[in-house]
């Protein structure tokens, strides 16, 4: 299976933060979610892929091509939505489209018009008059109107109500059904990922914690709930983090199978949600 996006040992240094040795791949035809706490490096990775910032080391290949050497060629096939859509405030949507569309050889005007109608976006209005949700919808309409093979979305659903989020996710899912498209999107909202992502990459403090198929993660990671006195950090196989509360200890394990064997009768083992994973790995006391 070909990878539509291949990142190898990517490194970016800032004062006070370093993205370090990041590697992961997105196979063609799938959706990958990038999750991690604020400041973990999600947006940095996306900016590096789009060459908005310069990398210090490593390799980025999109559609098998180097993302810097074949920059223009690659970008003609990428649809992008950033968490703060950067369009000129005082220009109408129609004019914005006229300025941008000609850059894409596969621009589909009819599709764009259809999307604008479905999203209920008035073409004549100026960009600044739009609410945040509508701005995101406009950016999305543009990103989806030139038959892009890869959609890159940075926090597309932040601050938006469930109705819009579900619509967006449905659209993405529909896109995937019809053709060989791929999607990379970063988000805080782990429930969105649980809904449609095929692959998940978790980043923390500039490093990859894991990158794997979602189903695999949800199968293998679990939360063990046990009494405070019974808990021993060696006693939980695959322990990744734990927390004490007044009710006992909650421990995250990446080896649910082995943990299940090690349980005693009063312990409870539950499937870990993506949010649980993020939470315990960020805040829990680390093991080992």
């Amino acid at each position: 299976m070909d990878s539509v996006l291949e990142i190898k040992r990517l490194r970016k240094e800032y004062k006070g933060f370093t993205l370090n040795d990041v590697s992961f791949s997105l196979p063609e035809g799938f959706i990958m979610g990038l999750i991690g706490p604020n400041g973990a490096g999600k947006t940095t990775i996306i900016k590096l892929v789009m060459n908005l910032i310069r990398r210090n080391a490593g390799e980025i290949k999109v559609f098998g091509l180097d993302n810097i050497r074949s920059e223009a060629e690659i970008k003609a096939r990428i649809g992008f939505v950033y968490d703060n859509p950067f369009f000129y405030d005082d220009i109408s949507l129609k004019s914005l489209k006229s300025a941008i569309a000609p850059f894409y050889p596969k621009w589909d005007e009819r599709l764009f018009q259809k999307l604008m109608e479905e999203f209920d976006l008035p073409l004549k209005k100026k960009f600044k008059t739009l609410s945040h949700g509508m701005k995101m919808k406009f950016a999305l309409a543009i990103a989806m109107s030139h038959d892009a093979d890869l959609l890159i979305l940075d926090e597309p659903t932040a601050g938006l109500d469930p109705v819009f989020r579900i619509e967006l996710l449905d659209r993405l899912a529909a896109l995937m059904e019809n053709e060989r498209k791929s999607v990379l999107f970063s988000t805080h909202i782990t429930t969105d990922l649980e809904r449609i992502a095929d692959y998940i990459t978790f980043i923390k403090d500039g490093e990859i914690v894991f990158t794997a198929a979602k189903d695999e993660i949800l199968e293998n990671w679990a939360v063990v709930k046990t009494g405070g006195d019974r808990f021993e950090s060696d006693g939980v196989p695959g322990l990744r983090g734990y927390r004490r509360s007044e009710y006992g200890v909650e421990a995250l394990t990446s080896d649910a199978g082995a943990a299940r064997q090690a349980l005693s009768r009063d312990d409870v083992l539950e499937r870990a949600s993506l949010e649980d994973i993020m939470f315990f790995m960020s805040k829990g006391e680390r093991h080992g």
Partner: protein
Amino acid sequence: MVNLIRKELILNRLNILIFGGMIAAYAVYMPLRKVSSGFLMVSIGVISAFLPISFQAREDRFKGAALNCSLPTSRNQLILARYVTGWLMMTAGIFLTIAILLMIPGGLTIVHSLLTLKSLILWLFIISLVFCLILPFTMRFGFIGVLVFLVALQLLGTLMLILSLMFRGKTNAIRALFNGISGLVRTLKAGLGETGFLLLGVLFILIMNVLSFFISRQLFARKDL
């Protein structure tokens, strides 16, 4: 390139209209006040040069660089387009001025004095100077940087004035500098002859633009957005 130019024009439509209006107003107003053609060239030249600079300022304001750099194009192309569009705008400014002058009473004489090779080259020189200097500056420091630059220039001018007053009669470095430059220009003119001197002027304009372009390109290529 066409796409890039079109994009610049669409996104900065209002500025083009406003600056166009200012140029037209000057072109109408100045002959009425019997202003010298030299003054007209400088003022309209400066306004024209600031039009493409305002494109850069707008891009800063709306963080349009992120959008521009995400489009299927390269940073070098983006910068080249800014310079090309800039020159398109500035030459359009010249044409506009002349067109308006032709239409108003008293304008014809000014047009005559403007339409000499010498005047045109001088005009282009003035425009280039402003454009080539300030565009990379705006790119590096943003629009605020330009304001800072202009204010700094004012302060420098005031400082020079004070200094010249203080050192009146004594060895005046600034006066010496000016005399030096005008002396050099005169020597060149005498040495090269009229045509040769004009060619030198054109060469200088080209060099300024090329240098400015390369500097802008470097600045932009490195910029983390």
